[in-house]
């Protein structure tokens, strides 16, 4: 009985702690938005973060996009040719990437590459009292450190997802047209006919934007909230990657269920 009570107490404490943390994160998000104006006045800071989060993530995004496209092309052709529809490979590759794989995989890669780096940077700044020093110099760390990194991530993410999808479509073309020999005209024209700009492309961009907000918020929050020790920073980085991955997948399901309900 005593053990059950202890177990319940621990579960209760975790739930209460989780609710507090969620509340703190919501307040943190509000503060990030509040200080965004000040942050945009120092535009060079956001541009710098665009470089770190966006440009430096390009290699992993482009290479991954290419390989995902190659696999999609192969699998797509292998399945579709059973039904005599191998010319629809381009359509399958494009829709898979634009609607789902582009935003989701780019989001996961972005969280692992840029999100973890942002958490580590802010966490170390906190550990070495740089954030406190800034605050003592009457400069808000939200305006100077947090908001630029948040917006750098939010702006980068849709662009990276778009490049991931573009590279994937190119990979699909490479495998199915160049190596397998599907008709090139069929590959592109079927894709052009089947992909709807608003329904497929815009919804994909909305998804990647939402994932960008989620991953960037998690990354800056975990860095800012970490315990100021080596172990604290390490745990915060792990939490960033795990929470971002789970959040992206959960949000993807919610967004998909609202966006794609079967087009007539």
């Amino acid at each position, binding site marked *: 009985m005593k053990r059950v009570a202890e177990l319940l107490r621990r579960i209760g404490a975790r739930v209460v702690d989780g609710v507090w943390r969620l509340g703190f994160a919501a307040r943190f998000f509000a503060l990030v938005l509040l200080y965004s104006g000040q942050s945009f006045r120092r535009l060079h800071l956001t541009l710098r973060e665009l470089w770190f989060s966006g440009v430096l993530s390009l290699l992993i995004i482009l290479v991954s996009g290419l390989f995902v496209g190659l696999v999609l092309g192969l699998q797509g052709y292998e399945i579709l040719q059973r039904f005599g529809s191998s010319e629809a490979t381009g359509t399958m590759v494009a829709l898979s990437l634009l609607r789902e794989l582009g935003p989701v995989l780019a989001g996961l890669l972005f969280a692992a590459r840029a999100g973890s780096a942002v958490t580590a940077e802010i966490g170390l*700044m906190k550990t070495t009292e*740089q954030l*406190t*020093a800034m605050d003592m110099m*009457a*400069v808000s760390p939200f305006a100077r450190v947090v908001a630029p990194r948040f917006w750098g991530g939010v702006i980068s993410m849709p662009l990276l997802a778009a490049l991931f999808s573009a590279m994937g479509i190119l990979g699909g073309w490479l495998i199915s047209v160049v190596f397998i020999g599907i008709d090139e005209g069929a590959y592109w024209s079927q894709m052009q006919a089947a992909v709807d700009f608003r329904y497929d492309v815009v919804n994909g961009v909305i998804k990647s934007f939402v994932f960008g907000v989620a991953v960037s918020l998690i990354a800056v929050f975990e860095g800012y909230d970490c315990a100021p020790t080596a172990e604290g920073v390490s745990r915060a980085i792990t939490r960033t990657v795990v929470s971002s991955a789970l959040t992206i997948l959960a949000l993807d399901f919610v967004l998909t269920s609202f966006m794609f309900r079967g087009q007539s």
Partner: protein
Amino acid sequence: MQHPLQGIRIVSGTLASFVESVVPLPVTEPADTPLVCLRNVRFAYGEREILRGIDLSVRRGQVVAIMGGSGCGKTTLLRLIGGQLRASAGSVQVDGQDLARLSRDDLYALRRRMGMLFQFGALFTDMSVFDNVAFPLREHTDLPPELVRDLVRLKLNAVGLRGAEGLSPAELSGGMARRVALARAIALDPMLIMYDEPFAGLDPISLGVIGQLIRRLNDALGASSIMVTHDIHESLEIVDYVYFVSEGRIVAQGTPDEIRASTDPFVHQFVHAEADGPVPFHYPAAPLAASLLGEGAP
């Protein structure tokens, strides 16, 4: 040969008037009122009480040391004066303003007239030495780049590191990093400079250099300084007044001469670095024999 602080003296008046012209500052209190005044200040982290009724004041132009053993609440005191923490009871006044009643903007306006040297410098690692010192100037003034450059060089010259302006913080030794942080702390010619353990981990030469810098900069800028430290011998050479803190209370105070002559057991133990005295060497625990026999094991 021109003294390195001479430039600071010349420029500080110009910069101070410029900062005051762009940053609306509250009316400064008369010169005879204390710059910092703590009255019956209490503070606790959750259930753990750190400060238990502190009364302390710092007059303008003074260099004051707050001393005590590790974990006695010295750094907490500094954070209360800087407005990073709020007292749970009592009042903390800086330049006549009660910190508990200040809005965020007012607190930031006050902090523009404060400088703080952190224990390990807290230099921004993504900036060079030059940019670190220029940071407060760029953030709070619209000075032309040429003037910022000259001011930064004067500040770095004052701490003897003009030649290191292009280095990154990772290339500096502990003592150099603290001197750069000191140059950054005085960039806006503050009225109050706070030092958190300025002597910790320094070699004897750096220790002496930092100590002399603290005194000279205070006098050159016409500022007041509060220094949290447990390096008694270096501190007594440069400060005007000393407060001893133990278990959250001021247990002794006086000028350096009074401290040296004091027969107070706490002061005596501290000055002569004795293991036994009012401050116990051991953290409260069961007797060693009982502990070795396994009693009270976790």
